[in-house]
């Protein structure tokens, strides 16, 4: 019982602490859904030169994304030389592995990739709260496991923070926006040493 009370207090204390911690000022919700325009065109082949640093190991390749239909993205990662490392499909909330190199076919790694990349491409998420922070308009979307905070500067999405237990777990940074394409994207994990850097390839 005592434990329950302590837990309950903890939940109460921790609730809203992300927005308090980062001094987000609550605003009325006027926008119904969150738009992420960076992977939203069906006519664009999105190709990014990528550098992945994981626990000090550095490797690179090309991240290739195509929107095939609403809520339907295909994503492949190849070496610069063209060899396919993985090939995933994201359809609605389903995730399918079309191909992955046997050496990388590890559940934990796949879960991380799935989580990161589905957040990267998702759009039209329902807004559950709105805030203001400096010049940013911040929109929050909640799911069962995590909360997502979208930071917009003017109308450009410049950051997504994926929050678990009121702490930022993964940060997505978008910069040099041109024609609805983020020329630079960084995915920075806070709890594991994984850093993904993407630079748009302008062919």
């Amino acid at each position: 019982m005592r434990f329950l009370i302590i837990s309950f207090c903890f939940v109460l204390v921790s609730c809203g602490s992300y927005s308090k911690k980062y001094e987000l000022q609550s605003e009325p919700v006027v926008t119904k859904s969150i738009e992420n325009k960076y992977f939203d065109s069906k006519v664009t082949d999105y190709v990014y030169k990528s550098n992945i640093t994981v626990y000090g190991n550095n490797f690179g390749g090309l991240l290739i994304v195509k929107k095939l239909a609403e809520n339907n993205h295909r994503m492949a990662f190849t070496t610069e030389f063209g060899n396919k490392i993985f090939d995933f499909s994201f359809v609605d909330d389903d995730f399918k592995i079309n191909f992955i190199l046997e050496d990388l076919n590890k559940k934990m790694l796949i879960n991380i990739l799935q989580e990161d990349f589905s957040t990267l491409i998702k759009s039209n998420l329902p807004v559950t709260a709105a805030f203001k922070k400096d010049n940013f308009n911040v929109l929050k979307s909640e799911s069962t496991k995590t909360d997502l905070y979208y930071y917009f500067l003017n109308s450009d999405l410049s950051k997504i923070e994926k929050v678990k237990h009121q702490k930022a777990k993964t940060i997505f940074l978008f910069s040099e926006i041109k024609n609805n394409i983020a020329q630079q994207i960084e995915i920075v994990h806070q709890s594991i040493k994984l850093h993904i850097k993407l630079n748009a390839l302008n062919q």
Partner: protein
Amino acid sequence: MSSLVGAQQKMTNTEAETLKALVKNRASKTKTIVSDFTQYKHLDFLSNDIVTQGKLHFKSPDFVKWAYVKPFQYSVIFKNKTLFINNEGSKSEVDVGSSKMFTELNNLIVKSVKGDMFDDVQFAITYFNIEEGSLVQFEPKDPKLNEFIKSFHIVFSEKGDVETIKMIEPSGDYTKIEFTNRVLNSTISNAIFNN
């Protein structure tokens, strides 16, 4: 079926033997190669192939450098069975994602230059006459390699030079490399192969 596609006709055994001898002879006289290359990465779900360009250096017996210059700077050097990578200035010696496949392909290219890739133990090989010269299809027999490469297609010019290499994945997606502006047996300093 494939012998009917696009004026490609299966070679007779004699023709295949002649091609092998031509390539082998050509290779034995090739000490260095400098060539431009254009790479097309074809993924069925994309609207356009991803095009990258660069320069290949080869020096006998087994120094190879692939240097991509457009649209990014990236080079891979094969030397003394080691892979040296220069990724836009950041240098490393191992590439966990690609080393095995890259090594296999590189072996094949080095072998094709030397004229000894016609290895019936490793590959099921089929020979075709085509308009531009000859097409040889290599299907790896090693199930490990087969997992990511269904077939290598190499087009040889009438002189016996490698014109294009196509690596076809089990899904049908492929990588095609075209060689242009080839210069044989010029002097290449070993320093080219330093990372």
